[in-house]
């Protein structure tokens, strides 16, 4: 099994006709993802290498039965694109776009919760989601991941997600699903959403969680793990030595006071029984030990 997406997921790419949307849409299709449609109100009726383009997500859903959307629209249009997707009837919306204003994120997160409670949003500013061998939606390099489980990955950082997939593949450890939740202030899907889904997934036997400085998402995840997770969790938190108050790249990665530091996050995770690596390689090694202890290697 996998979580959120698999080989049956039919995806419409909002912004398929743009350079990024086209590049990754075609790459995802080549990987095996069911890329069924694109949208662009000005180019409805055309196609991108055989993938039909519609004016709206609603039209794409009606014609192709799309169940998910992937947004490559530039930041100013993301708010409308997310609404278009939710109104159009898809149940899973992945927003790759970075640079979305925080007020827009907060607005559409709450709008979806109120009017479209059964729609899951992933992102913005995330690498997307891959269930290796089944579907790759977003910008992850699919070939670095080994399919089949038993590990589920959830990460706030793009490149560290790839690093984690690679570390595991090097050790011949497969992945059920790898979810990049993104580092923005209001992520649509949280660590806890993913941890709960992995806990419920039979094929996932252990979870790798990659956090970073800023906010309190890792501390909240630690509390969830302590009370709700039976499966082992291995973690790495980036930014252990980041100076307080410095903003490093991600909008979300701002340290305020002691809350939000990598040290505070690692302490909270360790207290919840999580094995914490000090760098991505060490986290990979810890996961290899966990898999061995579970008798799965």
């Amino acid at each position, binding site marked *: 099994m996998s979580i959120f997406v698999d080989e049956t997921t039919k995806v419409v790419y909002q912004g398929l006709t743009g350079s990024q949307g086209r590049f990754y849409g075609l790459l995802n299709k080549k990987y095996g993802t069911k890329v069924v449609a694109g949208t662009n109100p000005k180019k409805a009726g055309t196609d991108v290498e055989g993938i039909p383009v519609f004016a709206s997500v609603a039209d794409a859903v009606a014609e192709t039965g799309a169940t998910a959307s992937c947004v490559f629209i530039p930041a100013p249009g993301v708010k409308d694109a997310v609404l278009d997707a939710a109104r159009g009837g898809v149940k899973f919306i992945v927003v790759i776009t970075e640079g979305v204003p925080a*007020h827009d994120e*907060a607005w559409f997160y709450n709008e979806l919760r109120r009017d479209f409670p059964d729609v899951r949003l992933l992102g913005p500013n995330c690498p997307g989601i891959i269930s290796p061998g089944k579907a790759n939606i977003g910008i992850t*390099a699919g070939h670095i991941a080994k399919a089949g489980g038993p590990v589920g990955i959830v990460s706030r950082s793009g*490149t560290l997600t790839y*690093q984690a997939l690679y570390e595991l593949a090097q050790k011949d450890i497969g992945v059920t699903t790898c979810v990049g939740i993104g580092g923005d202030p*209001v992520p649509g899907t949280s660590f806890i959403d993913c941890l709960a889904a992995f806990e419920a997934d039979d094929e996932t036997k252990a979870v790798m969680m990659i956090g970073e400085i800023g906010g309190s998402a890792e501390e909240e995840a630690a509390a969830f793990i302590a009370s709700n997770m039976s499966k082992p969790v291995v973690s790495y938190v980036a930014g252990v030595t980041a100076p307080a108050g410095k903003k*490093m790249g991600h909008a979300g*990665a701002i340290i305020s006071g002691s809350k939000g530091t990598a040290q505070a996050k690692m302490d909270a995770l360790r207290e919840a029984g999580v094995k914490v690596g000090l760098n*991505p390689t060490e986290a990979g090694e810890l996961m290899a030990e966990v898999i061995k202890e579970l008798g799965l290697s």
Partner: protein
Amino acid sequence: MDLLEYQGKQLFGRYGIPVSPGAAVTTVDEAVATAEGLGYPVVVKAQVLVGGRGKAGGVKLAADVDEIRTHASNILGMDIKGHRVDVVWIEKASDIAEEYYASFTLDRAAKQHLGMLSAQGGVEIEQVADENPDAIARIHVNPVDGLSEVDCRAWVEAAQLNPAATEGAVDILLKLYEAYTEGDADLCEINPLILTPDGRVHALDAKVTLDDNAVFRHPDYEQYDAIQLRDEREQAAHDKGLQYVGLDGFVGVIANGAGLAMSTVDIVNQVGGKPANFLDIGGGANADVMAGALEVINNDPNVRSIFINIFGGITKGEEVANGIVQALARVKIDSPIVIRLDGTNADEGRAILAPHLSDRLQLQPTMLDAARSAVELAGGASA
């Protein structure tokens, strides 16, 4: 990005939030002319983005023309924590009966806006939050609903301000929420929000941080870019469009992706080194970007070695390697370089780098090995 006090007050003014009359000036003569126009006493306030300006002598009360001249000439050009004061704000002094604190920011955990209001303003609000959290009345605002007058009033009542301040506070907070949302601010803070002896409420200070991502909606915000606090290295990197944060060590760091860059800074520290910077060159690693990054790092006199940490995802190893080789041909680098190249087509990339390798351009197989080499080449671990 952060606004100076007077810029924050100008923003507040556009939303009808009462502030003291005043003007931002850059010369002593202008300061005097402004004060004469306002009538004494006036307050002279240094306009800098660093905190602690009051303690540094950057805020003074002037009762007459001699005092305004003295204070303005002392404060203009003053150094506050390494930052020169180029602008002072002159405003009419206010009589203060009570000082409050008010702000709006985004509560990431609750995924809603958070308003905070306290009757104990004017002092270190963080201390109040620590020692007496109940002294701060909080309200969560769902962005879809906005802030209603009824909820705002209940919030103000919960903060137990002087009843004489209630109407004025409700009015200001509704306007502050509007400034915060329409202005795409990360933070709108008034400390202190004052009640005057004659019962008026107004903003005596303004602290505003705007969301860089929302500049497309507010083209006028570009004017604030030039005042942001950056050291020389950070400014050079900013001009090249690089994500750079200056640190105080001696190992220059270049990585692709913010997470990997943070992780690289961590691992340099873990093996006993001290990173000179955080630098994220983004997903790709073409020759232009790499050359720009190397230039910025090479110009940092503290750098004694450079660690380039690249993980190829969609970008293939050979493209990254070619980018590095071309960049090195363009920029003369003074410090030895250690490269770690992994991920997609790493072997092909390493083969391209092989003929260029030397004692001063090393390739290491893992992040840990590369970090150790970089620290060693810099002269060993820091004391």
